[in-house]
């Protein structure tokens, strides 16, 4: 039981901090999707060229080959530097990349991994469908085998950045015999293929980062299947375990700094009595204190998760505990900001702009839905950690 970072790790942290300070993007992040693509890819390229992409990715794929602890240090410093979330690069770096590393064939790895790290391509996810949300295994986007190709028809939904993506991790149904978990195939889809139609969905925060994707006889080479045809469910589960592993570390650090910003804000702003600062209000002060305590405990829980993964070698189902607690907390903190702002919270400010508390509040509703709803996380905790009957 220790919190000691070795001399090498402390040195690594200093290097990360210095490099991020000197190289972080200075311009404001654009709002339009095409601009976001260029901005996020340019920042990823900068990291790659500086030798900072893929801290825990093996060196053979262009990563640094460092430990999970170094990855933690990177995420912590990244969050502390106030940098934007990886957004357009999220699926490539945290989903597709780790999945390809563990499940893909050598030529697939050779083709795809380095471009993800180098900021050359954007990946998106094609898992959810209108009829297959929490019940992902009931997905019905159909793929027929025709010679050495899969021919895909159907629809996907909630695909972030589909309109600017190059590649997609796509789940399709290749067989209807057996249980619904059988007959699913995990395939790499070229988003520039003929027959793909992408339509952005405007969400409650006014932005349009999600899309619907329609497939009309889209032809994908069978050589793009990861794992075996009909065996994609286990590949998809490993994808999701990566998402619930360390991917929230930077978000957790960002949340901790958001709480500190709110404490500052409550010290500066007049509170609900119109005279004293907001922090003098007992209820607001206790909620801020609770938030500070809870993000501290969230960090401790992240450290425990990383310690556990470092011992076992793979992220376990405990990632669902962190995901559930983190996303519920994001919502609470966003709500608290609105209560500190009072009527000033009625003014809409995008979450991409400093002080964008109202935009952030609206966005926070997505956090307990995306990446598996809180209810699905509770099912996973109940079934896989506690061993409760299904």
């Amino acid at each position, binding site marked *: 039981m220790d919190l000691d970072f070795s001399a090498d790790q402390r040195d690594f942290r200093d290097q990360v901090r210095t490099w991020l300070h000197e190289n972080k993007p200075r311009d404001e992040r654009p709002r339009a999707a095409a601009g976001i693509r260029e901005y996020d890819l340019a920042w990823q390229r900068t990291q790659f060229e500086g030798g900072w992409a893929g801290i825990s990715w093996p060196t053979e794929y262009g990563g640094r080959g460092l430990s999970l602890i170094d990855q933690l240090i990177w995420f912590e410093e990244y969050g502390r530097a106030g940098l934007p979330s990886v957004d357009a690069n999220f699926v490539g770096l945290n989903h597709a990349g780790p999945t390809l590393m563990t499940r893909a064939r050598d030529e697939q790895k050779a083709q795809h991994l380095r471009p993800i790290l180098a900021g050359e391509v954007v990946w998106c996810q094609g898992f959810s469908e209108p009829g297959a949300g929490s019940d992902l295994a009931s997905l019905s986007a159909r793929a027929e085998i025709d010679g050495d190709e899969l021919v895909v028809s159907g629809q996907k939904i909630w695909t972030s950045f589909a309109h600017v993506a190059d590649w997609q991790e796509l789940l399709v149904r290749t067989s209807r015999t057996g249980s619904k978990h059988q007959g699913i195939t995990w395939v790499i889809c070229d988003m520039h293929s003929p027959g793909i139609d992408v339509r952005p969905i405007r969400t409650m925060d006014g932005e349009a980062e999600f899309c619907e994707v329609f497939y009309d006889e889209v032809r994908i080479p069978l050589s793009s299947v990861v794992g075996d045809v009909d065996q994609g469910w286990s590949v998809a589960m490993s994808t999701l375990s990566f998402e619930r592993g360390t991917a929230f570390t930077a978000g957790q650090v960002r949340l901790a700094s958001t709480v500190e910003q709110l404490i500052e804000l409550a010290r500066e702003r007049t509170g609900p009595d119109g005279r004293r600062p907001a922090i003098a209000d007992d209820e607001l002060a206790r909620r801020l*204190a609770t938030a500070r305590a809870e993000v501290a405990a969230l960090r401790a829980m992240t450290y425990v998760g990383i310690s556990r993964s470092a011992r076992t070698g793979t992220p376990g189902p405990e990632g669902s505990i962190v995901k559930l607690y983190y996303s519920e907390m994001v919502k609470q903190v966003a709500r608290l900001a609105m209560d500190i702002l009072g009527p000033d919270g009625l003014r809409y400010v995008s979450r991409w702009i400093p002080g964008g508390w109202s935009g952030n509040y609206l966005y926070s509703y997505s956090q307990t839905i995306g990446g598996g709803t809180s209810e699905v996380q509770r*099912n996973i905790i109940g079934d896989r950690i506690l061993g409760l009957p299904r």
Partner: protein
Amino acid sequence: MDLLPSADQQDVVRAAADFLAQEMPRDRIRQREAEASSVDAAAWTGCADLGLFGLSVPEELGGAGFGVEEEALLFRELGRHVAPGPFLSTVLAAQLAVAIGDADLVASIVAGKTTVGLAALRAGSTVDEDRVRGDLDLIDAVEAPLVLLLGPAGAALVETGQLGAVQTVPSIDPGVRLATATGVDAPVSAWLPAATRPLYLRGLVLAAALLVGIAEACRDASTEYAKTREQFGRPIGVNQAVKHRCADMAVQAELGMAQLYFAAVSLASGRPDAELQARTAKVVAAHAATVNAASNVQVHGGMGYTWENDAHLFVKRVEVLENLLGGRTEHLAEIVALPAPQ
């Protein structure tokens, strides 16, 4: 960085966990309800024989030489068993005796010969290096020759016989004996200034450990019941209303445990934010134990409301611990005022 207990650290408490399961089963609390002391002398001596009171006492003074981390793991086990007896005040008193160099007192506590109860100051009461004055709440102190007081300026040991007329009070918790002493004006027999060794923060971490143990025990009891209790022809745990309640208990237990480890290491290694981490550990663990104890009653249905079921023992001990060494409101006020965590 590895925040989980090592194999060696787990071994340290394994014998204690086995002993508690054998010799201090929760049912003993019900059996001793009418006794003056909540814990029988044989069990207490057994704890001493196992070295539980000297776990973090230096070896040259007869202890095992471990730190607050191992002691936190022990207290987590004590919490899990809702162990009766003044463990917290006795172990903290041993640390006080070590700090002031009173080897005889250390030896007597480690051997289980001197037990130390806890005294809490009521509003307007004071303690300094010379005297304690005012009204005191006494926790498991009636049978103990000494009581420990943790005031803002420091920690004091006072002879129980010097407190004057002590009035026993019916206790909400059948495993904890309560009393009050009013109009006290008694000499302090040993004093440790707060600045010398943060005994209070150590007390917060150990109280948090007791609460984490309770939160975990409630999670486990509910999970077990949800797997075996059948209604409508199937285990109640298949229903999301029950399953999700158990899942939330798992989240709370994990959160409390993680922060407990973080705080214990922060205190042991002298991190500058140790006070924030220790207060946070108490707040988070108390919340975890409170909601888990309440959920555990609910999951057990009618059985959870009976005297025979252990669910009420958890509920009651949580209430005692929440009020020990400062409650939620007090800690939250400090947490928001302290500098940001490191």
